[in-house]
């Protein structure tokens, strides 16, 4: 069953075509990576999936709900985390999580906050204002916020940006465990290729608003005859190797 279904999606701003007729699906329990250089259309795509941005054309269905007509039913069952969108800095971590517990209608929110604090190791700063935390702590809090409603679909933008390798690894392990336990479907936009190789079953490579290639990390490595996803990324971003052959054909 497809949890996310995107068909012929485009977004045009005045003279710029930011997303150009893309389509993909995310199955139950599947983790899809969205890769591409700056300006490739990843943020625009995620914004449309979240309902923040109206598409120029195309259709998005999440958890069976048409995002153009019934987005709030889907939004209650999904969530998003990005280190680039802050949580209110002057209220405590616990208060922040309570706020989002209310907004997402979480039952037994205090218990859920306790669970997340255990799993993401938030206890030592749970009662400190969110603005006083280190970048890594903020990322963990943002992740806790995104998991407060036990989402069935989770969108992640650079989930481990600004984390030290140890904490980054803990977060990746936690995402793997959450996916295994909950069957959550995830879409991850990341520039960390090792992370993509580790977490993603399927990768969408974007360039200039289009999906220029897609496949499992192993399939992409084979197709581009590379040893790392970083090299695949560079081939696609710079239009060389297999990407150039595809472009010319």
């Amino acid at each position, binding site marked *: 069953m497809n949890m996310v279904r995107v068909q012929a999606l485009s977004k045009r701003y005045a003279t710029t075509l930011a997303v150009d007729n893309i389509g993909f699906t995310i199955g139950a329990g599947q983790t899809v990576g969205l890769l591409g250089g700056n300006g490739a259309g990843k943020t625009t795509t995620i*914004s449309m999936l979240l309902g923040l*941005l109206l598409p120029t054309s195309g259709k998005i269905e999440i958890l069976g709900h048409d995002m153009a007509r019934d987005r709030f039913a889907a939004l209650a069952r999904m969530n998003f985390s990005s280190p680039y969108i802050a949580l209110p800095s*002057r209220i405590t971590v616990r208060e922040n999580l*309570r*706020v*989002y517990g209310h*907004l997402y*209608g979480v039952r037994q929110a205090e218990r859920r906050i306790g669970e997340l604090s255990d799993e993401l190791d938030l206890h030592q700063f749970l009662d400190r204002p969110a603005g006083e935390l280190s970048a890594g702590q903020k990322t963990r809090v943002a992740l806790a916020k995104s998991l407060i409603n036990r989402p069935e679909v989770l969108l992640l933008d650079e989930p481990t940006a600004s984390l030290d390798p140890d904490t980054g690894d803990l977060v990746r392990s936690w995402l793997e465990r959450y996916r295994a336990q909950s069957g959550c479907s995830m879409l991850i936009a990341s520039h960390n290729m090792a992370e993509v190789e580790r977490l993603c079953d399927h990768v969408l490579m974007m360039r200039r608003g289009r999906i220029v290639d897609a496949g499992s990390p192993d399939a992409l490595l084979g197709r581009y005859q590379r040893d790392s996803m970083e090299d695949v990324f560079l081939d696609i971003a710079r239009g060389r190797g297999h990407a150039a052959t595809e472009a010319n054909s």
Partner: protein
Amino acid sequence: MTGSLRRIWGLMYRHLCLYRRSWPRLVELAYWPILQMCIWGFTASFISGRAFGTAAGGGHHALILAASTLLAGVLLWEICIRSQMGVAISFMEELWSRNLGHIFISPLRPWELIAGLVGVAFTRTLAGVLPAILVAWALYAFNLFALGPVLVLFFANLMIMGWAVALGIVALILRYGAGAEALAWSLLFGLTPLAAVYYPVSTLPAWLQPISRAIPATHVFEGMRAVLLEGHLALGAMAASFGLNIVWLAAASLIFAWQFQSARRRGALVAIGE
């Protein structure tokens, strides 16, 4: 608690936490209303003093009543201004903390967002204006509650007008971003000369009077003067104020809904505040 009520409470809780933790914000709530009360209170005292110092006759009583209407006008206008600022500033708090992205991707509906902001504004208004009412009573022996139960109608109409204006300001912020923030502080002050706060509509030039009568607050202040000066409640004035408020609120809601959709089309919800 139903889903909507819980989401509205969630937004209110976020702002109440903010105030609980910030004494400068709490002081700011009451600072301007008390300052206004002091300035106009001493002015009214001066006018009243002149009344006792002048020759005998009806002039005494008229000047004292004029001073009373001035104080009532100051306090009631603060209700409207604080209600407008309460909604607009609470929205801007979300903008300043860069939290709007999280809010807009949550299941909080736009009308629930507005309801939450109105709830915060209501609390802020009471917290801001009640101390000024106490100051008026303690320093100038002016009891606003002496106006009687009609005060509830005055408060309701002035608050609704404040919320309608704030909704328009939020719509402008969605359209023009942070550049429209200054309107949150200045827009309603600009209406003061036209809203018959300190003087009757008849004082205005004839060509300005229709504009003044299109403002819901004008009818509240005319009603307030009728109570204080003539001792009767002008129900027609209250009905006019309520009717105009419905029109203002409907117009502001339409503009907000239009700008919200437009912001979603332009991508402004992603970048707002940046």
